């Protein structure tokens, strides 16, 4: 029997077999599902910010930033026996929750770009994405087949 693994904000978890990974209510944050189709080893990360190098505070967790969280999670998947060459990604989130004229706050867009840049650098193709716009998303990820469901209060449920 698989486990339901809840991934919090600024967190990542790795599962396999019939585990189900869930992260709730992504706003401007990004959920990144990585699935290795050869081993079924799967990881889900929930990042808040694009870039750890811009932050002076040394206390900050590496799981919070796109540039540290995603490589760390992939390292863990590799340690468990996953192969980077057969990894595929699906991403969701990066919304603008409150429309303002002030672009300083468009962190969603910066998060989308950062996650895509990290995945591109690691040569992991993005199979599907549901990003941007102005609503929150819950992401459910089945480790056994890489299926991802996005649910939102406005749009209902859909598979990506």
């Amino acid at each position, binding site marked *: 029997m698989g486990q339901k693994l809840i991934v919090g904000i600024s*967190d990542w978890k790795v599962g396999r077999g019939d585990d189900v990974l869930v992260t*709730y*209510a992504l*706003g401007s944050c990004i959920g990144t599902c990585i699935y290795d189709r050869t081993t079924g080893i799967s990881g889900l990360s929930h990042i808040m910010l694009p870039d750890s190098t811009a*932050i002076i505070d040394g*206390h900050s967790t590496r799981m919070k930033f796109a540039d540290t969280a995603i490589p760390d999670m992939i390292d863990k998947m590799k340690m468990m026996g996953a192969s980077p060459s057969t990894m595929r990604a699906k991403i969701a989130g990066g919304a603008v929750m409150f429309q303002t004229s002030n672009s300083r706050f468009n962190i969603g867009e910066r998060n989308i770009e950062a996650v895509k840049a990290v995945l591109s650098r690691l040569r992991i193709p993005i199979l599907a994405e549901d990003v941007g716009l102005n*609503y929150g998303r819950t992401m459910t990820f089945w480790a056994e087949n890489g299926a991802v469901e996005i649910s939102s209060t406005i749009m209902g449920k859909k598979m990506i």
Partner: protein
Amino acid sequence: MSIGKYEDLNDMQIDVLKEVGNIGSGNATTALSSMVGKLIDIEVPKVEVLDFNDAIEAVGGPEKVIAGILIRINGDIDGMIMFLFEQNLISLIEETFFGDAPPDIFSLTEAQMSALTEMGNIMAGSYVNAIAQLAGMTIDVEVPVMTIDMLGAIMSVPAIEMGEMGDKLLFIDNNMIIDQTSIQSKMLLLPTIDSLDHLLGKLGVA
């Protein structure tokens, strides 16, 4: 002594912040109360210093659907005020303005949304004016913005902006009570760490 992290606050400083919340939310609630013509009370404010996930649990859980009104504040205090309005408070406000209430939170019309946003504007103004007077500060409020969505997604906005500084969120949580029933609608004041230092300094407990 200046605080570098929200966790560094001592008990006396927390008590002072509760009083700040009490005065601010008292003033905001009076404004709401006079608009809707109902007696509205506030619970004793809580000062919460929590990591992001616990903060979201503390205000209702990530997937709870709620109306969030965000008002950025700046001047002597930078940060945000966040109103989290539940259906029953929304109904009360809409009945006051329009004579009837929408059947649910998703059927709000443009005009009904504007009414809620304006209510948030008035309440935020009352909240910060009370603090500004108390501490001899100048605080400006920006134009409010509103959305209806999952609480986790709404709270990700302050979490991200305050998250650049650390891994925790500080908020003063004021819960409103209408007709002796707790309506679980909240006013949150979220100051940046620098502003918190400044405020505590002005109030003599830095």
